[in-house]
């Protein structure tokens, strides 16, 4: 039986834009539910990996990446998804490296990353809410810099 359904569904226009947005909501629900269930809404659990008292971050993160990786590989082998149409993050070496270093400093200082701060905030963690305020300030500072004519994101390609 060949139903001729090939992902990505939205890119191949097999589903409408509205359906795509509705599914985006449910994908969000799925990821939010999983992240909260395993403890990503707690900064002390997240940061625990850097002090050796809690390794949940590494376990979840790498298991997740490997699962998605293998899934995409098999989907591609079965002809269920066209990997050429899947977005692959381009490499901007220096901005990725320096950005990662700044994010790492933010992680150990603030105890969250953007996704996990949404998790914390949604169950009432005030520290997560304040972290999100910080995110807005940080993104705005960067964008103000861009407006002043400096495009930091393209030092290398």
């Amino acid at each position, binding site marked *: 039986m060949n139903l001729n359904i090939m992902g990505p569904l939205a890119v191949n226009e097999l589903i409408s834009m509205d359906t795509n947005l509705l599914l985006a909501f449910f994908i969000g629900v799925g990821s939010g539910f999983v992240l909260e269930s*395993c*403890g990503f809404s*707690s900064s002390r659990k997240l940061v625990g990996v850097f002090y050796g008292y809690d390794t949940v971050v590494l376990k979840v993160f790498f298991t997740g990446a490997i*699962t998605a990786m293998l899934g995409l590989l098999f989907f591609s082998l079965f002809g269920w998804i066209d990997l050429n149409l899947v977005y692959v993050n381009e490499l901007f070496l220096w901005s*990725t490296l320096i950005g990662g270093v700044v994010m*790492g400093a933010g992680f150990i200082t603030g105890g969250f990353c953007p996704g996990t701060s949404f998790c914390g905030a949604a169950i009432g963690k005030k520290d997560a809410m304040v972290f999100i305020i910080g995110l*807005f300030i940080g*993104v705005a500072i960067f964008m103000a810099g861009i407006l002043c004519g400096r495009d930091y994101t393209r030092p290398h390609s």
Partner: protein
Amino acid sequence: MKDKNISGTRYLNPYLSGVLLGLVVLLANFISGRGVRASGAIKSAIVAGAEILAPHHHGNAAFYKEYAAMHTGNPLNSWLVYQTIGVLAGVFLSGVIAGRLKLKTEHPPHITSRRRLVFALMGGILFGFGSQLGRGCTSGSALSGMAVLSLGGFISMMAIFGTAFALAYFFRKNWI
């Protein structure tokens, strides 16, 4: 310190969580051709705000041009924004089921709430700035990037976790 001692509640097995999270990322790629993201939602909100406050100001900036090309229409009407609203709903649901819904500032007993919040704000500013520089945060660049075997994803992951680990010693009094 065991997992459950920090907040007094039980969490889902991390490996099972990882598999489920991976399936969500797989599904996102299968449906929309992109993985999950987080920091982009903040950017969308700010772009939407900037358009209201200064509709013509940003017309020439490359950053906005690229953004506008990728996101046609209202910045708040994008895939990412629906996904983020979903995340908040999913988290809330899990919080209700597990009984973790509570307004509080989480910090170790030996530091004050105020200190925790000041550092949370500073960390947020750094992470926000870094996520724009690095073109994506832990979700969009590291997790989803690694899932599609993007070299940038692996570099991002190592830079974020490596730096946090390297700096952990200096911030130990905030956490342990």
